[in-house]
């Protein structure tokens, strides 16, 4: 059974009650997708780059140690993969923060526009759709993998401004998707109809009583109208009853009420959103999700970690500022904790109607708009993969940069000339190829995604 009630399902697909028996005899449309393995993708975003020295493992291959930033992921070490040397090579209009988030999942240039960054030319929105939407479209096109929403875009404390810095997912050129960063709004999107039906059910007895009372006090001719309505109300009651039978066992999660969207509530908001995401997977509402914590240039003040400055502000501090680097490490460690919580929830939740846990069928991709905050580099974007959803060979630390490690660190420290693009080191790979790998992981064998110039040699081999 799906966790969408039958009526929701029918309504969402524009089918009327008259088509119901037809649909039920056509399992492929509604329910047969339960037989095949459900693969899922979650893309988690945190901003402002990382501290490379406390983030990247020193070793390559399956024998590696997690450093401080990634230490919360220790329980999932054999189910994770770090990918060093995967770079965002897209250039063009916009500063690095803008291109960092706008090209991250799209792999394509931004349109020229009126949004001026801290440097470079002004830009508009991305000129193509993002990989999460590409995969969503692929899954939604097939009866066997189609779900009620296809994809869900979660956020936490995303800026009120709708601009290039605050949007990561695109349903097409110039079509940014606004992440939902209010858990209550997400709840109502996911479960609103169910709640409405509960409320409706609770008033029907009163309504019947009211109708009966009024019917006894009008003329016989007029009474017919009220009796007709009484019949409709009775039918509605029966439909609702049938619905609730279909929805048995798909409990609506309880949300802690009244958590305001405020900086200091970020930990709670993250937890609420993660819980909602896991629930939506249990109900198979979607197979693709994004989880955008703040936005590019995010200014979270992590007072709960005793850090009172904004994240972006600190991220500009030079490497020599050890205090700042220590804070940045703590900040990224906190993001890793959120990832760990998501992985834990997925790992401990059995796959409904399938084998193993949700994490066995889900790949989480954690990423960032920059490689490193103070240099604004788009090289070595921090890619951390957790989970077994796409059958990649996990438990490895990969390095696609075949230049000697000392030189790598060196290059990062020096910063890069991004306008000319000359800084791209031999041996590093374009992140478009990783985006291709994600699509291929779902069996969607596209050969190009985003700017084709960066897709040479095809998907990265991760299996």
């Amino acid at each position, binding site marked *: 059974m799906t966790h969408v009630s039958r009526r929701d399902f029918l309504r969402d697909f524009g089918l009327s009650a008259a088509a119901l028996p037809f649909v039920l005899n056509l399992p492929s449309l509604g329910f047969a997708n339960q037989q095949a393995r459900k693969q899922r993708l979650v893309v988690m975003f945190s901003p402002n780059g990382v501290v490379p020295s406390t983030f990247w493992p020193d070793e390559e291959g399956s024998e590696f140690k997690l450093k401080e930033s990634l230490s919360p992921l220790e329980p999932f070490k054999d189910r994770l993969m770090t990918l060093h040397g995967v770079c965002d090579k897209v250039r063009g209009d916009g500063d690095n923060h803008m291109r960092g988030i706008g090209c991250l999942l799209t792999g394509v240039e931004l349109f020229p526009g009126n949004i*001026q960054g801290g440097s470079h030319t002004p830009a508009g929105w991305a000129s193509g759709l993002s990989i999460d939407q590409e995969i969503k479209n692929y899954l939604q096109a097939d009866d066997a993998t189609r779900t009620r929403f296809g994809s869900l875009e979660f956020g936490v404390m995303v800026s009120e401004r709708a601009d290039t810095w605050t949007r990561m997912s695109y349903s097409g050129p*110039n079509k940014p998707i606004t992440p939902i960063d209010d858990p209550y709004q997400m709840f109502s999107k996911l479960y609103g109809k169910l709640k409405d039906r509960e409320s409706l059910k609770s008033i029907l007895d009163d309504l019947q009583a*009211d109708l009966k009372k009024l019917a006894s006090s009008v003329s016989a001719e007029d009474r017919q109208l009220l009796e007709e309505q009484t019949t409709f109300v009775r039918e509605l009651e029966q439909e609702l009853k049938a619905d609730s039978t279909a929805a048995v066992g798909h409990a609506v999660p309880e949300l802690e009420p009244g958590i305001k969207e405020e900086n200091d509530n970020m930990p709670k908001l993250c937890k609420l959103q993660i819980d909602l995401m896991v629930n939506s997977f249990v109900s198979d509402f979607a197979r693709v999700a994004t989880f955008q914590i703040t936005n590019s240039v995010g200014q979270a003040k992590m007072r709960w970690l005793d850090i009172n400055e904004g994240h972006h502000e600190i991220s500009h501090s030079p490497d020599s500022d050890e205090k700042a680097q220590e804070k940045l490490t703590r900040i990224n460690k906190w993001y890793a904790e959120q990832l760990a919580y998501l992985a834990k929830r997925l790992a401990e939740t059995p796959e409904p109607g399938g084998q193993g846990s949700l994490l066995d069928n889900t790949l989480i991709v954690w990423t960032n708009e920059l490689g490193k905050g103070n240099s604004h580099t788009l090289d070595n974007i921090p890619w951390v993969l957790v989970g077994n959803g796409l059958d990649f060979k996990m438990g490895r630390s990969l390095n696609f940069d075949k230049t000697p490690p000392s030189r790598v660190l060196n290059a990062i420290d020096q910063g890069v000339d991004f306008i000319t693009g000359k800084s791209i080191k031999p041996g590093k790979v374009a992140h478009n190829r990783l985006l291709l790998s994600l699509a291929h992981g779902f069996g969607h064998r596209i050969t190009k995604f985003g700017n084709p110039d960066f897709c040479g040699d095809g998907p990265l081999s991760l299996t």
Partner: protein
Amino acid sequence: MFLGVSTVCGADRTGEQIYQQVCASCHGAKGEGTIESYPHPLVGERSIGELTEYISKSMPEDKPGTCVGEDARKVSQFIHDTFYSPTAQARNKPVRVELSRLTVRQYRNAVADLIGSFRGAGRIDDKEGLRGEYFKARGFRGNARAFERVDPVVAFDFKDKSPDDEKMEPHEFSIRWEGAVTAPDTGEYEFVVRTDQAARLWINDLKQPLVDNWVQSGKDTEHRESIFLLAGRTYALRLEFSKAKQGVDDKKVKEKPPAPASISLEWKRPHRITEVIPARCLSTSRPNEAFVVTTRFPPDDRSVGWEKATSISKEWDQATTDAAIDVAAFVASRFEEFAGTKRDAADRDEKLKGFCRRFVERAFRSATGGLDDEQRAMFVDRHFAEGVDSETAVRRVVLLTLKSPRFLYRELGSLSVPRPLGSGPVESANRVESLPNGRGTDGVLVSDPYDVASRISFAMYDSLPDQALLDAAAKGELKTREQVAQHAQRLLADPRTRSKLREFLLTWLKVEHVPDVSKDSERYPEFNATIANDLRTSLELFLEEIIKSDTSDFRQLLLADGIYLNGRLAKFYGAMKDDAELPADAPFQKIDLEPDQRAGVLSHPYLMAGFAYTGSSSPIHRGIFIARSVLGRSLRPPPEAVAPLAPQLRPDLTTRERVALQTKPESCQSCHAMINPLGFTLEHFDAVGRFRKEENGKPVNASGTYRRRNGELVKFDGVNDLAKFLADSPETHSAFVEQLFHFLVKQPIRAFGSNTRETLRASFVKENFNIHRLMVEIIATAAMTTTEPKPQTAVVP
């Protein structure tokens, strides 16, 4: 009394004679039954065949078998057709005020006003255009404000210049326009912001932009979004525009090359084309956010010419549920604001309950404090039970209230909510018994004051009574006809009333649904969608002038010789008085045309083009419009569907000759003898409504006739003759009175007395055909007639 077979069932007797001789003594002369023998009405659902069989076997009761064969069949047919069958019963039923649900328009308006009553309307003024604040910076900082002015429309191409050279620099500035937009019709509106810069547009909801183009990306310069709006209502509008780079404000950049900038604010009204929002639809008002029900309802039954809402369907019931859920969600998202309380307030629950009680009272058109204990428990208190959070409780109250017949139906009358003592002149509970005619001992009409308030408001503007009406009801000030008329008079200025009257006039002209007037582009190459759109506007401006004028003289609709034209229309239709000319880009203005060529709406090119084919005029469509709408004649549909004779098949004939030829058969003439000679009088107007003197090289013959109901034959030549006759004809006046009555009251006029139409017509004449006065008279008549039928016991089967 039974007289024996031979005498009774003679072959020459009719079914009625047989019935009166044999059956009536027990069944009554009209099948109503007799107390001694058969005290039940003779009604049922058997067919004539079944009745015949039954009568042959069993009737008359004391001598069965004596009325058989052809006699039995004849008497069965008589009984069946005269009073027995369901159709006969319906025919015999007296016309009465029937229990009606809210029409779709009434439902939407009632919900909007119910929610609106908790916020107020905001500040509404009549000043056209939008307030524009101009800033010499990219943002809207107070200290960067350069000047303010009212812009009639937003359609600016600044090029690389400043809006005002003396007050601001050309390379970086911003403008914020604020005010309101009024929706003439109900439906889906597309708002279009056309700009090469950053811009944002809010409509109604000032928190969430409808169009957000703060990021100007790529080459898109047209940004459009849809929103559903209700007719006659004014919605808040804000438009922000910024010529500047957004994002990081880079003051270091010294070099600022000249760059172009432009912005226009346009819309596409339902069934219309995209155009700059005209000044007359913009105002400097500051209305509060309105709630608009967007749920799709099945359309109301208009088969009788007005929205008759005496039946319901499953789809309607589903729509009321869906809409109630939407309203509940909206209220739940703002209930603390409505209730005037906060999350942590100590008296929060009490405040919320108080809000819910007022919500129920207003929805039920009842007095403040008008719910009795039982109703208060049922509709409000019960939902605030232990373990139910208050948001859920409020949702439930809203759902139950909006699903209750007390909200959904009109004419439930005082049965719906008991009134507090002393609120009216008569106790509602015993009113029906003690005052069967709705008249007090002094002969003055009396009614429950809250019923009267509801009838006034729904008839005037299709919504709940306003506060002044409720106050008057509470004070017992809706007792007399004068008091009711005073309120009706007051409400004439209400935009909702004007909107309703506008819709009526469009309905009267049979163009309420915006007909497709596209034309044969080879014959009329200059007649395009823009001209068609302009024509519609021209007609609407004319109607609005009549609606707004104090005299609101009905005859002007038929006789006025001016017409609203803009530059485009003037060029196309020409023939202005004294060869005057308009510049091509001239806005709409009232123009006097060549006299003797046009008369009021009858010859308005929009109607002439509407009642025409794509390539030729249609005297039949025009004749039917005059006969049915203007003169109120009933016409049967044609006996068979007939395709019009194509002009190219008989190129030697004029349209008039072709129509005459095709409708020559006797079977056509019963109606076309009336239709054609009326339509022919408009033959001076071609398929696009242009005046012509010749057709196919032959002079146009625009002579016509009309046989009045009293048998007199009237002759006309051309539109002016016709218009003069119609404007003075009591038939026209009667038809207008009846149609307006039905459109306002939505109950059959005969249910308010057999003389009502004539009385209203007489007062219409006396009041110089003032449409406003007629509305007041109609409202006073309908609101003061006590029509509630006495509760009856079920019909004996």
